[in-house]
């Protein structure tokens, strides 16, 4: 049985940011910088521990998979987010054993919205889509946090000065990128938070209109 510490050591290399004076986990696959302030003054504080956990490699790639979902960048205030909660419980928290139970939990965590009774495949209400603000992307939005500067649909940069559509969760997308998705689902592609269901009875949804335009559905 490996300790939680050793598993954590494998999963989330810990660095200390000299700029914001706290321990952070850098965003992988980018140059090493602090995910909070993007400062480069990072000190490696990962404790090198031999990892006896045979599933360490597995945890590693599931962790990377989750980070690809941009979880590392989620606002900690968003405590209602089930994915964030799950990461908190199972990755940053106390994975102590090494069995497939944890692995199932890890995978289950990705399967949010799959419980019976949750709405599936609902397009966003037209009124909710209309209400999405178009923002001019500011320098600070681009330079803080990394993930806002990136449209997860086309995987292109969102540059300062560009016009972007901002979701209630704060994630921004090119308008042309997010509309076809909202025609299919009423959720943010990155954090899966749903748009408010402001659509009253009789309110058309954006789905039919967009589907007619470019045949995304089907």
């Amino acid at each position, binding site marked *: 049985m490996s300790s939680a510490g050793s598993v954590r050591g494998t999963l989330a290399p810990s660095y200390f940011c000299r700029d914001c004076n706290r321990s952070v986990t850098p965003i992988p696959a980018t140059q090493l910088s602090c995910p909070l302030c993007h400062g480069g003054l990072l000190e490696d504080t990962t404790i090198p521990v031999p990892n006896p956990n045979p599933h360490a490699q*597995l945890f590693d*790639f599931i962790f990377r998979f989750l980070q690809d*979902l941009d979880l590392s960048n989620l606002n900690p205030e968003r405590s209602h987010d089930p994915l964030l909660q799950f990461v908190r419980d199972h990755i940053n928290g106390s994975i102590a054993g090494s069995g497939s139970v944890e692995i199932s939990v890890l995978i289950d965590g990705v399967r949010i919205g799959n419980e019976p009774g949750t709405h599936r495949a609902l397009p966003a209400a037209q009124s909710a889509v209309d209400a999405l603000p178009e923002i001019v992307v500011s320098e600070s939005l681009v330079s803080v946090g990394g993930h806002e500067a990136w449209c*997860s649909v*086309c995987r292109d940069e969102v540059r300062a000065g560009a016009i972007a559509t901002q979701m209630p969760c704060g994630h921004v997308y090119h308008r042309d990128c997010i509309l076809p998705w909202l025609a299919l689902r009423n959720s943010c592609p*990155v954090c899966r938070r749903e748009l408010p269901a402001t659509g009253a009875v009789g309110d058309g949804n954006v789905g039919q209109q967009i589907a007619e335009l470019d045949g995304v559905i089907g």
Partner: protein
Amino acid sequence: MLDVSRVQKELADCNKDKAISGVSIDLHGGDGDLSHLAGTISGPVGTPYEGGTFRIDVRLPSGYPFEPPKMQFVTKVWHPNISSQNGAICLDILKDQWSPALTLKTALLSLQALLSAPEPDDPQDAVVAQQYLRDYPMFVATARYWTETFAKRASVGIEEKVQKLVEMGFPEALVRSTLDSVNGDENMALEKLCSG
């Protein structure tokens, strides 16, 4: 319309760290068709799939990335959530839990995770699932045997063969598909490449 630029970025991104991630993806054929791709995942350590290389057929619908990629195991595999007959996969992120923020790489990583964590209660292959639940040691032995038989033979030293043939001047994608079609036999592949 298929987002060609995104797919190209994804291919580059996925293959950048394939040695670490254990997953890779390439064009399926030499004709540059971005809607038909060939993925590989290496069997997770500590599972009956360890040591195997599993080929995945990947087809991108015209609505990609708003619609999920269609993935299917080409390499035969013994697993409750993968059809032992045709390689069809039961995994929700490839169905209604897909999001355009996911990528081909994360989908392949999820398949790798699925190999590590079978879910016999939600099976794709009822026979395998039943064996998994009733006779786990037999399941492990069968899965291991299938890995030895189908996921290893053709892939032993395949990278060296690919490199050798590519150095002779054949395009890599064509080399891979040709080697595939002759079960990894280097001489037969060379013959085919020269005659074709």
